[in-house]
């Protein structure tokens, strides 16, 4: 996937690096790969989300390793080693620039958030709807709740998962969460 880097226009590549650094700095919960991919595709570049995700992972590994070892910009570029010649010049430039500006700020922080082994909940969006009619029932009037959970997976990629619940299911869902919150309080 590294060779796909040359497909990404410079400003999008810079944005990707920015998001990776901000994620490592715990300023954002993850890299919004899906959204970025869509914008890149809209600009006419053919890149798929899998490749973009791999590139994000590579950058994340690069920056976090550099942070742990306290590398200066020049040392970082040296680490890229032979890859420097295969990477497009603008990519190396962006990496250099982003690292100089923000690299030192990456505190390899002693933080509980670093231990991510499962997806981290980011956000929830919801909708309450009533299905009025369908091919099986002309007059349905069936209420339901639609929820979209935004989750940052362990590698930092943000994905959405949507699902529906009936009203009784929703009531149970809510009750369970209240239970979880009260247990969390007392623990």
């Amino acid at each position, binding site marked *: 996937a590294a060779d796909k880097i040359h497909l990404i226009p410079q400003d999008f590549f810079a944005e990707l690096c920015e998001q990776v650094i901000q994620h490592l700095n715990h300023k954002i919960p993850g890299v919004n790969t899906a959204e970025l991919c869509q914008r890149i595709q809209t600009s006419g570049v053919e890149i798929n989300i899998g490749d973009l995700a791999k590139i994000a992972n590579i950058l994340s590994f690069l920056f976090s390793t550099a942070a742990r070892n306290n590398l200066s910009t020049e040392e970082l570029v040296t680490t890229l080693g032979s890859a420097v010649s295969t990477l497009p010049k603008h990519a190396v430039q962006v990496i250099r620039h982003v690292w100089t500006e923000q690299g030192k700020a990456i505190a390899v922080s*002693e933080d*509980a958030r670093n231990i991510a082994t499962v997806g981290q909940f980011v956000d929830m969006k*919801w909708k309450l709807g009533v299905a009025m009619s369908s091919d099986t*029932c002309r007059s349905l009037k069936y209420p339901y709740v639609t929820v979209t959970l935004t989750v940052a997976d362990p590698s930092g990629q943000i994905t959405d998962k949507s699902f529906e619940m009936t009203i009784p*299911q929703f009531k149970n869902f809510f009750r369970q969460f209240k239970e979880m919150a009260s247990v969390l309080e007392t*623990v």
Partner: protein
Amino acid sequence: MAALRDGEVAALQILLKAPSKDAVRQLCQECFSSPPAALGPLAQRAGSGLAVSAEEAEQLVSALHNLTRHVVYRGLTRAEDILCLFPENFHQNLKNLLTKIILENISAWRNEAQASQISLPRLVDMDWRVDIKTSSDSIVRMAVPTCLLQLKIQEDAALCGNNPVVSALTVELSKETLDTMLEGLGRIRDQLSAVANK
């Protein structure tokens, strides 16, 4: 369809050959539940029980499927509405039997129709656990309560046929994110009450 078509009327009369009322009841239920694509095999099974030709069995099964689906689609709940779907000269006892069977099943069938309509993936199960993180490779001692939630989500039943795909989504929530979630859910609850009161 406003009323039964002629071919369907004739086909339904084949039920007079059924061995028992229960056999008719069972066939009605199977014909309702079966998707159009599975009517063929159902007709074969039904035909052998009724000692009719394959073609007659297909017409019967199709007529019953259309009749039962029509009743559910239109939301008919009264005996009079169902009885007037049949023509005047239709066999009285059979007409009454079919109406009775339909009325018995109508609410279960309506639920079935609602459950199988197109939808986003559905939540089928949820499990959770509260943990305390006590240490890690980077932090020797801490006491961070955290919540692990696993949601089992079933993809659209209509797309998966008899083998629905269930995926598990495991998510970690901190106290803050759990509170965000609760706030959102509380708002849904408020909306539901507001809508229910209208």
